[in-house]
């Protein structure tokens, strides 16, 4: 019972802390509608995704409808409504990368992380995988970004090794 209350308090505190940060961000952008995209970007930076309750909260304090916040959040591919992994693996699927074999690389990653169709984040929230549009390093195709670090001229074998290394590292961390 006592533990429960403690737990609840933690939750309330946690939620308050969340909104504190959001307040700061929205205030920094002067509550202005033209800055909505920048606000959502900053919020996503903080939480690694856009939680629904936070979007509603942003709408409330900016005095716009939740629908317009949700509309913007779902329009742009940069925004994610689901939590991302600790390691965000982005496989570039621009033309140059595609022609030089980005899809076999993507499939190898999904296989390695045992992500079946329709699943993009591992259950332990360590890895999430997605294809992204051209990252502008076409001459090094195919490229894979893992948390903004660019790996160039990757092969399915190489990318499996890279993930192995990261798995080891995150294992050590725990």
């Amino acid at each position, binding site marked *: 019972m006592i533990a429960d209350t403690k737990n609840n308090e933690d939750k309330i505190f946690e939620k308050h802390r969340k909104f504190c940060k959001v307040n700061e961000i929205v205030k920094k952008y002067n509550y202005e509608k033209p800055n909505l995209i920048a606000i959502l970007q900053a919020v996503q930076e903080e939480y690694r995704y856009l939680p629904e309750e936070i979007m509603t909260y942003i709408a409330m304090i900016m005095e716009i409808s939740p629908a317009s916040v949700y509309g913007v959040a779902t329009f742009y591919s940069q925004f994610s409504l689901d939590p991302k992994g600790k390691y965000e693996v982005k496989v570039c699927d*621009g*033309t140059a990368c595609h022609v030089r074999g980005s899809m076999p690389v993507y499939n190898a990653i999904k296989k390695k992380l045992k992500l079946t169709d329709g699943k993009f984040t591992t259950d332990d929230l360590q890895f999430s995988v997605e294809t992204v*549009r*051209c990252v*502008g*390093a076409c001459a090094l195709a195919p490229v894979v970004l893992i948390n903004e670090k660019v790996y160039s001229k990757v092969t399915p074998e190489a990318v499996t090794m890279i993930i192995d290394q990261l798995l080891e590292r995150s294992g050590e961390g725990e």
Partner: protein
Amino acid sequence: MTEMVKADLKNEVKNAQEYFENTGMRVLICSGTGCVANGAFDIFKKFRELGADVLYKNEDKKITTVKTGCHGFCEQGVFVAIPDLDVIYVKVKADDVEEIIEKTLKNGEILDKFLYEEPKTGQKFKNSAEIDFYKSQTKLVLNNCGKIDPESIEEYVYSRGYEALEKVLKNSTPEQVCEEVLKSGLRGRGGGGFPTGRKWQFVRANDSDKKYVICNADEGDPGAFMDCGIMEGDPHRLLEGMLIAAYAVGSDEGYIYVRAEYPLAVRRLKIAIQQAENRGFLGNNIFGSDFSFKIKIKEGAGAFVCGEETALIASIEGERGMPMPKPPFPAQSGLFDKPTLINNVETFANVPTVILNGADEYKKYGTETSAGTKTFALTGEVNNTGLIEVPLGTTLREIVYNIGGGLRNNKEFKAVQIGGPSGGCLTRDHLDMPLDYESLTKVGAMVGSGGLVAMNADTCIVEVARFFLQFTQSESCGKCIPCREGTKQMLNILEKIVHGDAALKDLDLLEELAEVVKLGSLCGLGKTAPNPVLSTLKYFRDEYLAHIEGKRCPAGVCEALKIISIDSARCVGCSKCTRTCPVEAISGEIRKPFVIDQEKCIKCGACIPVCPVDAISKN
């Protein structure tokens, strides 16, 4: 409120000269996105650790390491250039730095192993004047890229930076500037090819208390990174171009809309804006005139359609990036309903050159109707990939064979895809066609933003068309039904074709749908989405037919059309494959060749690695 700084170019040039005299021997380390991925910052750090205090040949000459923008030849990164010794080192790694300092910088010895090697002949070349990749290029816009430190305003000023701005502010009326740009024949480099000077005149002609200038840096074409190269390598040139445009159209506020996928470009632009403000090139009463201008950066959030001007404006206003019908054109009613000029990065970056050298000089490059140069991102199956700049009207052959060094592994040239998902493909028959706005439109392609992806016989053209359509389909904003639903149906048909499930009548339907999507869409995305399909159908119809009628993929790319077979001459009849096959598709007598029942085979490939004599293959 803020203290006013009066720009003084003479003084700045003097400072820049002093700055340069003190840098001594410069070691230029390419720090474009490509080279950074290859470890350019590690090299820079290593130089700093080891080399900040070394002296060249024990003379009184200091050495300064400089991070530059893209050299263009990304394939060979990391690039390290030493202009004083007239040498370029390629494929440098952090571990090589010590040797370079000891031998080259301290003793002037040129190290052979770091020189560029021509892949065909094995010959080594010392500098860019000798390397084929550079020899055939004309660099106006990219002139500073790779030569100067993009994070230093002194270096830009030293390369005659902001001279064009001073020239127009002191000597020309806004009308004269518009006129000069129109006369130069400069056309929009974002793809449309609309005369830039005319666009400026339209915005100028609209009376309003407020006007905006927007730089479209939402370079969304997959396979294009020219604007990225300019912003990372020479950001001040873009600012100067925007300033001149703002003066010409009568605007006092500008935005640069950059895609969020270019963090390095955003960082360097922010630095450049800060520096220009500190020096008084941006701000109030620039050069003592009554012209004031400020620039803000807006980061995109990943939506290809925002490259369309009305969608881009909606995005800056914080809305979903959906296009609006034109008219009204942005020149009449754009951002926040005010007259707005939108040009792309490369267009603005051309402006200082136009002004500085004059329209007549600029017109000497390019063709009659397409003046100047164009940057291209040359990628795909050529030997030399990278960022290039050539006069408009250069032939495809020149680009693919001289600059690109031909196709990799001496494979046969099949086609290039030009202009990204809105463009079309060019084949062997077009190798000698001049690349300019008119010629390209005539054959169903377009300059587009300038992505140039080379393909060889191993590339399946139908698969490429499917790839582009999948891209435009997922990027369609959904406003116009023909685009939203039509591209989806087209994609379905293409999926059927690459899976070998299509019938001939599907091809007619595909063409019919393409016309509908083209006609029934509001913005450029929908209007051009069918282009890759139409142009590949035009030039490679037989490949489509091979997929549909013959159920085979001539390039051997499409997974579903591949067949796994056993080479009966090699097979020793060991039956290992039979035991591995999950669907019992393989049968035969021991010690005699086995066969695969194609009806049963699910093409999983499990049998291929178990064969002891490599008799099984997929093709």
